[in-house]
């Protein structure tokens, strides 16, 4: 427990540094939110009014301190552009969709990768293994947004198996179970596309680890004792091959948050990715900063979770 608290405290300076850098960068950029809000060539007096209303006419350190002060009180300030709504509210509105997408993708990648990797490792360099390894290598190299388009062209447009856009069917107003089914149907394609490269990676790492483990003496002993092959793999070899898999998955969570930006764009998924693009295009500083913070926090938590899972899987690892 003390370890968890200390790890969380250690991340504060990093997050603070990211915040300062992002703040300065938004400031250094040519043009400001007022241009984006009101367009160019308008009434100067109105611009000045907007600037003082958004407090953009104050000195930079004062702006930053005021922002940081609000932040410490749990207030992410209000969006410049999106109708002056609180940033926290905007993010909270979009976050569940993104988390749903990312966690589904993670689940697919982890479960699928473990199964495929184990199957491939049973006969290394056999036909099945070569097929899986090659497919994994190729799919790891495909850009997610292109894969998304291919999935749309073939599975959604041609075959009509899946809905094309969004998270729910806008024409039908489902409630209860029907609503969940509707979301599930919309979720399949984006989650699969988002999962693809991680699925490939987890498969490769699982296979490689298992191939090494299955060659060890204890596995021979277990087989000699007459255990079924499935039990040998699942109960003895797999847990030992799991550590690199956990590392890989933990490292990829940050990447998932970025890949989801493009995947959400293709599928019109109403998550953080599309909000981030709007914020970048309109120079909405509070919104951009807020999103950087939230994503940084999630990545940090994911890293912490990775380390804790480590200790849980491998009792030799202890934190103090």
């Amino acid at each position: 427990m003390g370890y968890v608290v200390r790890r969380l405290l250690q991340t504060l300076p990093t997050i603070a540094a990211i915040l300062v850098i992002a703040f300065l960068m938004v400031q250094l950029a040519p043009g400001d939110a007022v241009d984006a809000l009101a367009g160019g060539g308008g009434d100067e007096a109105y611009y000045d009014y907007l600037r003082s209303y958004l407090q953009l006419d104050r000195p930079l350190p004062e702006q930053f301190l005021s922002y940081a002060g609000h932040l410490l009180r749990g207030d992410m300030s209000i969006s410049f552009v999106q109708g002056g709504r609180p940033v926290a509210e905007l993010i909270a509105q979009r976050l569940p969709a993104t988390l749903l997408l990312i966690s589904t993708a993670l689940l697919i990648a982890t479960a699928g990768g473990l199964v495929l990797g184990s199957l491939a490792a049973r006969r290394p360099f056999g036909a099945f293994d070569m097929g899986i390894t090659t497919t994994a290598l190729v799919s790891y190299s495909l850009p997610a947004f292109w894969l998304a388009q291919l999935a749309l062209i073939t599975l959604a447009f041609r075959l009509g198996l899946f809905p094309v856009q969004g998270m729910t069917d806008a024409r039908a107003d489902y409630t209860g179970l029907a609503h969940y089914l509707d979301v599930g149907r919309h979720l399949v394609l984006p989650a699969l596309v988002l999962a693809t490269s991680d699925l490939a990676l987890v498969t490769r790492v699982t296979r490689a680890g298992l191939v090494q483990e299955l060659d060890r003496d204890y596995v021979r002993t277990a087989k000699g004792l007459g255990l079924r092959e499935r039990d040998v793999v699942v109960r003895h070899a797999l847990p030992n091959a799991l550590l690199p898999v956990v590392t890989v998955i933990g490292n990829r969570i940050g990447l998932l948050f970025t890949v989801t930006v493009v995947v959400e764009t293709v599928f019109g998924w109403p998550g953080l990715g599309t909000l981030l693009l709007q914020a970048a295009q309109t120079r909405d500083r509070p919104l951009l900063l807020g999103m950087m913070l939230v994503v940084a926090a999630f990545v940090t938590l994911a890293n912490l979770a990775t380390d804790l899972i480590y200790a849980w899987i491998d009792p030799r690892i202890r934190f103090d």
Partner: protein
Amino acid sequence: MVRRFLRSPSGVFGGALFLVVAVVALLAGTIAPGDPLASAGASLQSPSLDHVMGTDNFGRDLFRAVVHGTRTSMTVVAAVVAMSLVIGMVVGMVSGYVGGVVDSVLMRVTEMFQSVPRFFLAILVVGLFGSGLDNLVLLLGLTSWDLLARVVRAESLSLRKREFVDAARSMGASPVRILLRHILPNVLPSAVVVASLLGSRVILIEAALAFIGLGDPNAVSLGSLLDNAQQFLSVAWWMSAFPGIAIAVAVLGLNLMGDAVNDLLNPLSVTAARPRRSYKGVLAPAK
């Protein structure tokens, strides 16, 4: 080293793919002459003998666009990789060879760059400072050298204890000379591996940025071709298929090449894992 690389079938295949992409990029003007942004006939034609990859919604020839887009991608890759190689190798070699305080300071800085969410930063920078390729190259070149520096540092660390380096030092060679003449040639192979994997990441980032509309509007990019294809997915599959294949081929080639060289340098790596033929050789326990 080279001979062993040539014996790895996937490495050779990857190298061949990359070679094709590089030649296309270098000879873009000869292979597909003409302005890739100019119209070349009726719009949305499916692939035919006149237009092997079809035309897009503006009537532009897609083959020409893909060839020139490949050139754009590879230009960005070459510039970013060159910048990262210079920074990463200098930081890594100095850090590993000099050691001490210099090493710890440089490595802390490297770790900082490692935790930078690159794509987010790229969206910020390009979205705010304008979408010229120069901005993108600068940003990626200045922030992508972390892994290179770490790998090169590890190599230099072991090299500085070797006899030939001791010999050079005892003969009065200056540190700069030792770094350039003795350390540099020996860290170069691993640096090239990391650089090729970095190259494949850069292609993807450049394409992704162009795809979400943050690419350079004055250059044809494979990513922006895909962005353009998005609205015509149901009527013109070729607009999406061919630029995507071009990206995939380039990325796959670089990945395969990097993997193959990596297997040579590190027989215990993920991709190289294969069963031991005999129980005589003792392998270090996998972590």
